[in-house]
């Protein structure tokens, strides 16, 4: 069971989350049929670092994005919706036991 870094609540057990697939997929409603099919269905599905969406479903309820290595399953970063994908940061160390509510303070 993963320990997932919620940017609001801190690292929390996977049981509280829902994965929501790839992040940063522009909803290109103006595209032609093939372009729209790519929006809907085509995915990078990378073996390596993925930018993906999670929702802290049984927690703060927020969707957020995270970078994770799909080979090691280690998280590299988590960030809020709307923020740009961070450049490859160092991995978040394993075994950081959570203090509940240890996420960032809310920003204005």
């Amino acid at each position, binding site marked *: *069971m*993963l320990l997932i870094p919620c940017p609001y609540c801190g690292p929390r057990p*996977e*049981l509280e*989350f*829902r*994965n929501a*697939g*790839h992040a940063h997929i522009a909803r290109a409603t103006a595209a032609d*049929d*093939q372009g*729209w*099919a*790519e929006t*809907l*269905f*085509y*995915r*990078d*599905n*990378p*073996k390596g670092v*993925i930018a*993906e969406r999670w929702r802290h479903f049984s927690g703060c309820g927020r969707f957020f994005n995270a970078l*994770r290595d*799909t*080979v*090691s*399953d280690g998280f590299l970063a988590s960030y809020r919706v709307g923020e740009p994908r961070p450049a490859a940061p160092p991995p978040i160390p394993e075994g950081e036991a959570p203090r509940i509510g240890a996420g960032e303070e809310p920003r204005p």
Partner: protein
Amino acid sequence: MRFSFANLVRQSFSGHQGWPEQWRDPEPKAAYDAVIIGAGGHGLATAYYMAAEHGLRNIAVVDKGWLGGGNTGRNTTIIRSNYLWEESEALYDHALDLWQDLSQVLNYNVMYSPRGCMMLAHNIHDVQVFKRHVHANRLAGIDNEWLTPEEAKEFCPILNTSERVRYPILGATLQRRGGVARHDAVAWGYARAASALGVDILQRCEVKGITRDASGAVSGLDTTRGPIATRRVGVVAAGNTSVVMGMAGVRLPLESYPLQALVSEPVKPMMPCVVMSNTIHAYMSQSDKGELVIGAGTDSYISYSQTGGLHIATHTLDAICELFPAVRRLRMLRSWGGIVDVTPDRSPIIGKTPVPGLFVNCGWGTGGFKATPGSGHVFAHQVATGEPHPINAPFTLDRFRTGRLIDEAAAAAVAH
């Protein structure tokens, strides 16, 4: 040497010294007429039928690891063809037809065991969906019958059909020709038969690049065992399809997830058939060796790690214990995962790609083992002739553009 009882007896007198290699271990040639990437059941079957039915002998199957080591070697081996849509019915029933005498055709006992595959309905919606399957299948000539809870219990006596359980069983469908087969033997049987026909099976040969000529068509492969020239490539790499196709610049509607399975310690026969319950997520059969083979769920996130979370297994086992209360004291012997490539409509993609000479057979997700012979058979046609076999014609990539999905998931939410 043919596999037969007589030869087995003969060999047992000489300490089995006389058995040859089941497949050759050749060095890669510089060029092949066609190369199949992925020596899983599907890739090996493809090569076998290309050689056996299309006369192509100068072909190779390459695999980054050991043949049969992908999902073919780690699946719960459920075989059935009682799918809903006509396209799927045709595909899976074609496979089921081929399973019938596959052992004889390959001269390898793949232990196809049509012991019956039962799918449980736990609520009225299930009943409606499953009966729709029964009707559709009857029209298609596919055996699939409706059982009352009592009949289900008779067919699988360890099933808990009490009305007092949380989700009582309201009935079940039964496909009697459904069952299981020995996963490894399928890969090995195809490998041996293909090798005998001249197909080179190149293991520990990872494809690292797909080269293309000026026209954009495939011209060869870069592999860890050197470059291989070829103008026709069939990609059958299951969970790794996106990675391989990425080498040719092709993006696909696929996501790869870990799917887990587990076995119990072996016990004497207690489970005569295959039982699937999609509503409470439990799939179980008993192997010939005696272990209960149990299919768990996929993890929720994309991963290439062939492991997953414990909660997936615990969730499966609570459902298994609910359905089969006698197994609660049995023990999990081993659990593992495979990486399944999942399409948006849970149906495979079999056909051409935007790159000339490059063909793909993927997206079997959690349920492609049963299709192995059929998938190989039609894909061999596709790669050998360049044109689809009528059965795989609907399974194009283009359906995601047009919206003509073959959505087994939406229609029934039944996996495996």
